[in-house]
């Protein structure tokens, strides 16, 4: 790498320290609403913690990881120094300041509105301003990714953009467009109320605007993990990427289909018409296509690795895989969690099945399995892979790395599988208190207790992760091996122009957003008397 080592390190350290703090909060939350401890007594403390946990895990951690990884990709994949280093540092500091500004009112109990805001609840304006700063910082990153790609394209006319960079920029464009929904909600609806200029808010419209961001943001979180699947894992386990074009198609499909689907979060909201709910359900089904393509391509790539290592027969290649290699391990863990979580996701997106699990703990289990499990475990893998490049030092102990990944996998499974189950039994989500002595809830107690113990395992794994990173960084200097992204089975000399540029795909993304969101949004804007009084959180008692 050239200029961006310290920059990427700063992003990763801030991300992972915030992550560790939020992990402790999450584990505490599981404990206090489990039957293992007497209830904390004040639901506000619980919601305060949920807000901090959600805000850090959903906005701060993935944004910083995606940004840091993006800068690294510019230098590693394009083999050119990052252009706009000062801007990148400015974005980092805006983001860091935003995170602090948001967290101060949350920790004071002035913004316990949960990270999805939930108007008509209104918290301190500083909370929303902090979140806006985080987004503004990330938009600078989007611009920098765009600029660096352009510079490279000008210097390399007609050449295929390296896959990692292509996917990285797809993620950047997706984020730029998807963040607009929540930005509109905060700037036009929430902040005027939080600042005291208005006393009512159109909660239905706010929920529709937030759904614009709410689902596609998941794919922004997910893209670094997918980049690692395609461009790091096959090479690291001694194989080859089965198809470079399939990878590009997957990222393009994410770009197109991630956006027009958010209303599947609003299946029980009365302010959206049933026709649009169905339309969003269909496109949510479509977004499973790139994931299925990815599972196929990566499994094929892994099989190549197994056969190159001498594996024979229909399943013999599985045994020949380098299972002691952390990258192999992490991919297997990630795919198991992605598979289970993805199957659950198909249930969530189905207009009919959704009514069974809507607003139950099933949903909390689902997004912890997919994001906290399949995606975050790949963030660990990315950090481990880049650490020697960034610090010039070898990883402290591969055995500890394996232990950390095992603990995270086991912990996340123990947390989320019981969570899904109690959701099916009807346990509602977002509750601070459950009375497990009641006859209807008694049978859930054992599962909830189990799940809380899984939370402990995750905390141990998180602490171990930070320990490994810190210990490695303090180790002796070594000359790291030159970083190589995975090679494809066939050399990528040229790709169709459509798979090497974004114009068509960004156009389709915007067009589908307009088709699926314009009527619901404008209809709610036009309707009179849809605003309700704001409920100030943390008001004087």
């Amino acid at each position, binding site marked *: 790498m050239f200029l961006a080592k310290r920059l990427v390190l700063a992003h990763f350290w801030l991300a992972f320290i915030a992550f560790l703090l939020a992990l402790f909060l999450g584990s505490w939350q599981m404990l206090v609403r489990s039957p293992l401890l007497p209830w904390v007594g004040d*639901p506000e403390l619980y919601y305060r913690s949920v807000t901090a946990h959600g805000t850090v895990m959903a906005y701060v951690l993935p944004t910083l990881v995606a940004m840091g990884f993006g800068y690294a990709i510019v230098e590693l994949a394009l083999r050119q120094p990052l252009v706009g280093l000062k801007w990148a540092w400015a974005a980092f500091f805006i983001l860091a300041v935003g995170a602090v500004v948001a967290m101060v009112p949350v920790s004071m109990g002035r913004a316990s509105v949960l990270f999805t805001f939930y108007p008509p609840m209104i918290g301190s304006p500083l909370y929303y301003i902090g979140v806006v700063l985080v987004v503004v910082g990330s938009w600078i990153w989007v611009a920098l990714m765009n600029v660096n790609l352009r510079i490279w394209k000008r210097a390399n006319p007609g050449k295929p953009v390296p896959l990692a960079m292509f996917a990285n920029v797809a993620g950047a464009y997706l984020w730029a467009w998807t963040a607009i929904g929540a930005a509109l909600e905060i700037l036009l609806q929430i902040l005027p109320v939080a600042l005291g200029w208005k006393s009512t808010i159109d909660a239905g419209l706010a929920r529709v605007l937030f759904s614009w961001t709410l689902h596609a943001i998941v794919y922004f979180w997910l893209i670094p993990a997918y980049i690692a699947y395609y461009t790091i894992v096959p090479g690291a386990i001694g194989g080859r990427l089965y198809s470079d074009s399939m990878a590009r198609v997957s990222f393009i499909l994410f770009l197109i289909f991630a956006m027009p689907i958010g209303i599947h979060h609003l299946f029980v909201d009365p*302010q959206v018409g049933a026709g649009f709910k169905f339309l969003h359900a*269909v496109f949510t089904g479509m977004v499973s296509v790139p994931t299925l393509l990815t599972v196929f391509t990566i499994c094929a790539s892994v099989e190549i690795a197994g056969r190159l290592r001498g594996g024979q027969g229909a399943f013999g290649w599985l045994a020949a895989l380098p299972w002691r290699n952390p990258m192999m391990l992490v991919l297997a863990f990630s795919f198991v969690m992605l598979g289970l979580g993805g199957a659950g996701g198909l249930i969530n997106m189905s207009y009919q099945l959704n009514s069974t699990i809507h607003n139950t703990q099933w949903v909390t289990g689902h997004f912890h399995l997919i994001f906290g499990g399949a995606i975050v475990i790949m963030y660990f893998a990315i950090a481990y892979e880049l650490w020697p490049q960034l610090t010039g030092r070898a990883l402290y102990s591969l055995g500890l790395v394996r232990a950390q990944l095992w603990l995270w996998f086991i912990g996340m499974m123990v947390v989320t599988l019981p969570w899904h189950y109690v959701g099916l039994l009807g346990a509602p989500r977002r509750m601070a*208190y459950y009375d497990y002595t009641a006859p*209807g809830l008694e049978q859930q107690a054992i599962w909830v207790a189990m799940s809380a113990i899984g939370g402990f395992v995750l905390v141990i794994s998180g602490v171990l992760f930070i320990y490994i990173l810190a210990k490695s960084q303090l180790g002796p200097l070594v000359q790291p091996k030159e970083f190589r992204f995975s090679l494809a089975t066939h050399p990528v000399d040229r790709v*169709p122009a*459509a798979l090497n540029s974004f114009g*068509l795909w960004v156009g389709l993304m915007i067009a589908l957003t307009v088709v699926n969101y314009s009527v619901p949004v404008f209809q709610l804007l036009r309707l009179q008397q849809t605003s309700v009084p704001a409920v100030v959180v943390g008001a004087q008692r």
Partner: protein
Amino acid sequence: MNEERVFSLRNPWFVTSVGGILSVAVISALIGFIWLPSANGDFSGHGLWATICSAAGTPSSWYGGGANLNGAPPSEVVVLPPGHASADAASIGRGATIATQNCSMCHGVLGTVQVTAPALAGQYADVIYKELRDYQSGQRANAIMQPIIQSRSDQDLHDLAAYYASLQRAAPAEPGGATGAAQDVDAVRLAMQGDPIRNIAPCAACHGQLDRKGAAPWLGGQSSVYLAAQMQHFASGERHNDINEQMRNVARHLTPQEIDGLAKYYAAQP
């Protein structure tokens, strides 16, 4: 290498992707806006365009009856959720004058006397104002309060509310202490946690200990006799000025022992 044009009908990527997405969108729109709604008469009873509109979420009026379903509303007052409001000194001063002349006989000079009348010192302004308005309109019935408050102007009621809200909260009405040994465990649990399975919300979620909702009074400092009487009146429906029957729904689920325990618990709170 000559760059092929992406936005061209001769580019298969362009034709396939745009055509494919367009057909998915059109087919699912046909299903979602025409075929599925046609299964239900509420959607499809008024022709094709009305079917599409209702699937798109256009509100329509299907109710043909009168505007008022349940007779008189429980209260004329619209109480906004509490914010960060503060009263001005002049309003408090005017309120003090009115209170001394008209209210102190029963409620005490500083609003802390315990007879059968509630202690008003330190009570939330929106609570006092709403109750006074409800006495005025008769939505809360009381033989003494109604004639006293009948001719008062709206500003007078606001001034009274501001005055009482500005006073120090009353001391506990009865011994027992906030954490006394004699505390009734069931009452504490009901007050702080409620009983979700019986659909009883915790008292503290609205009445100020944990969170505060508009028009819900601070309960500490009231006598157990007054508190128990109010809960019984809510349960029987004799008192009915609670918005959306919030208190009536809670009180109906409480046993007489629970009402008694809760009244004693709050009477021992400051």
